[in-house]
């Protein structure tokens, strides 16, 4: 879909991009990552001709970008930048409508599309459509930026550090939301960031750049497992084994848990020899806590024992990654923790052996 063929770009004596060859496949999310000065933004901006290469060729959808008028090329490529760049003198709706209007869509179609896009990024059109950009929070503005870039339904999306100006908590949320949108829309995305964790979280493939050169271009798992050289290893960090765990989902590695409902027959079930534990749920399957066999029923009121347990801190969501599960495990000093869904219903449990298995099986060949 996007192909760099021996592309270089110099600014004065400085080589910002040096003989880059890279192909981004259709519907793939490619993250360009590297320290500042690596040429990431320059690479991105050459795709929509905001920067022209000094030599080499860039193909988009099989055509040399230089064979197309910059304006036409850009209208077919969504673009999100770090500072968002919303037009401060236009309402949120009018901002989102810019490209469809440039393309000459009729008004009713533009309006419908604007509302659809705002809903897609989680902003209620009735509430947000008529606001000024200056009345939005950083996270909201960034969502509008994404909505605006997607408004004309371009097959390609370029994102230049779109979430770096937002606080860490909101950044995580925006990343998660963006992944959901990407799973639904499957655009060809080129995403620039200097944040390795962000790259690992989002990328189908990571392109590591250093001083304008491509150092490694692989799936995140491969980059983490087999860094191409000492620079990559250093850049992804000494905790890359842990980072690899963050690509694995709890849902895929949990196993069934032994559980019982909290009702009258519970005492009879549990009053046996010691050593085993049971997860206890309410009638609708929501997790209440855990009880050791024997100890529980024979020594006092079950409800009282459950009331003292902080299950919220212990349980992990099935959508979480293995790294979060490991962290929760260490935090609660339990070797096995319960896995729950969004309604806190018990789905299973995950233990240290599962995580070891995941780390082992999740390995990839170089």
């Amino acid at each position: 879909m996007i192909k760099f063929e021996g592309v270089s770009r110099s600014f004065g004596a400085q080589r910002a991009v040096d003989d880059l060859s890279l192909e981004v496949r259709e519907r793939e999310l490619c993250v360009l990552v590297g320290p500042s000065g690596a040429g990431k933004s320059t690479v991105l901006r050459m795709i929509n001709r905001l920067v022209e290469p000094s030599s080499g060729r860039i193909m988009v959808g099989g055509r040399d970008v230089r064979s197309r008028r910059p304006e036409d090329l850009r209208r077919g490529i969504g673009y999100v930048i770090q500072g968002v760049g919303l037009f401060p003198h236009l309402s949120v709706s009018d901002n989102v409508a810019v490209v469809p209007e440039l393309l000459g869509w009729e008004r009713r179609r533009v309006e419908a599309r604007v509302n659809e896009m705002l809903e897609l990024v989680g902003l209620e059109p009735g509430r947000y459509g008529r606001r000024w950009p200056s009345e939005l929070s950083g996270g909201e503005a960034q969502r509008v930026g994404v909505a605006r870039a997607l408004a004309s339904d371009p097959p390609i999306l370029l994102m230049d550090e779109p979430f770096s100006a937002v606080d860490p908590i909101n950044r995580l949320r925006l990343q998660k939301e963006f992944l959901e949108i990407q799973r639904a829309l499957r655009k060809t995305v080129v995403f620039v960031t200097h944040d390795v964790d962000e790259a690992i979280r989002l990328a189908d493939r990571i392109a590591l750049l250093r001083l304008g050169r491509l150092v490694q271009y692989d799936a995140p798992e491969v980059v983490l497992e087999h860094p191409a050289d000492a620079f990559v290893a250093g850049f992804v960090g000494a905790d890359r084994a842990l980072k690899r765990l963050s690509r694995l989902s709890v849902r895929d590695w949990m196993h069934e848990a032994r559980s019982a409902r909290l009702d009258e027959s519970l005492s009879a079930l549990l009053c046996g020899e010691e050593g085993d534990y049971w997860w206890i749920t309410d009638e609708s399957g929501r997790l209440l806590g855990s009880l050791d066999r024997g100890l529980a029923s024979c020594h006092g009121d079950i409800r009282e024992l459950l009331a003292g347990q902080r299950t919220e801190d212990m349980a992990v969501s099935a959508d979480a990654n293995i790294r979060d599960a490991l962290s929760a495990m260490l935090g609660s000093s339990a070797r096995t923790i319960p896995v729950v869904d969004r309604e806190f219903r018990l789905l299973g449990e995950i233990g240290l052996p599962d995580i070891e298995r995941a780390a082992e099986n999740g390995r990839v060949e170089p």
Partner: protein
Amino acid sequence: MNGRSRIAAWLRFGLIAGAFLVLVFVPPALRGLLALLFPNGSNLLYPRADISLLVGEHVAMSAISSLLAAVVGIAAGITATRPWAGSFALVADRLAAAGQTIPPAAVLVLSVPALGFGLAPTVAALFLYSILPILRNTMSGLAGVDRDVVEAAAGMGMGPLSILFKVELPLAAPVIIAGIRTAVIVNIGTATIGATIGAGGLGAPIIAGLVNQKPSFLAEGALVVALLALVLDSLFAAIAGELPAQRATQRAAAHQAAAQAASTTTGTTS
């Protein structure tokens, strides 16, 4: 500026403009006012021309020169801020600054041999004098537009002209309008000097008052000029409140103030 203060700005303009129109087109009003100021005088009104005619001449001089200055100043300001302009920005700025350094009276005197007496040299002097604020404000207004916004516009496929007219100029408008406002107000005052070389306008009763030692003529011209300047100033204030860029920033300020007020209230209650 919220809805209420926008209406207030237009109301203020309406009141001042109403007072001005009454003074100019209802002769007893002006005569009565002067009689109040000079209880012992007689023949208080400037006899050689009707006040409405003088106002007409005055407005024509100021309007023509301001309009020319706005066209030239904005065009030069836009040119100077284009990426291909090079050192034109500096040159334009220096020239306009030089234009304002020369006192208008000197321009009048110097242009009489070339343009003769009357309206033309006055308009020329006023024109030279008003370019600077308009040019400077156009340049700084355009330079002040957020680069991210321009970059986003280009990246979305807007051409240079769309970017200029749909993004840069609307965003720079409050600053540009402020420049025109300054130019026009200064123009209204300075145009009185035109009367010394026979351009007429509201300077005529002032000069006549000085020459004939008739303070009431002087007051007649000065009062009406001052009120005219106020009318235009309040008009520009009202227009400025309608600009989308202005409304956006003011809404943002109100938004922040509200957020801050909310956080301080929660701060004190908790």
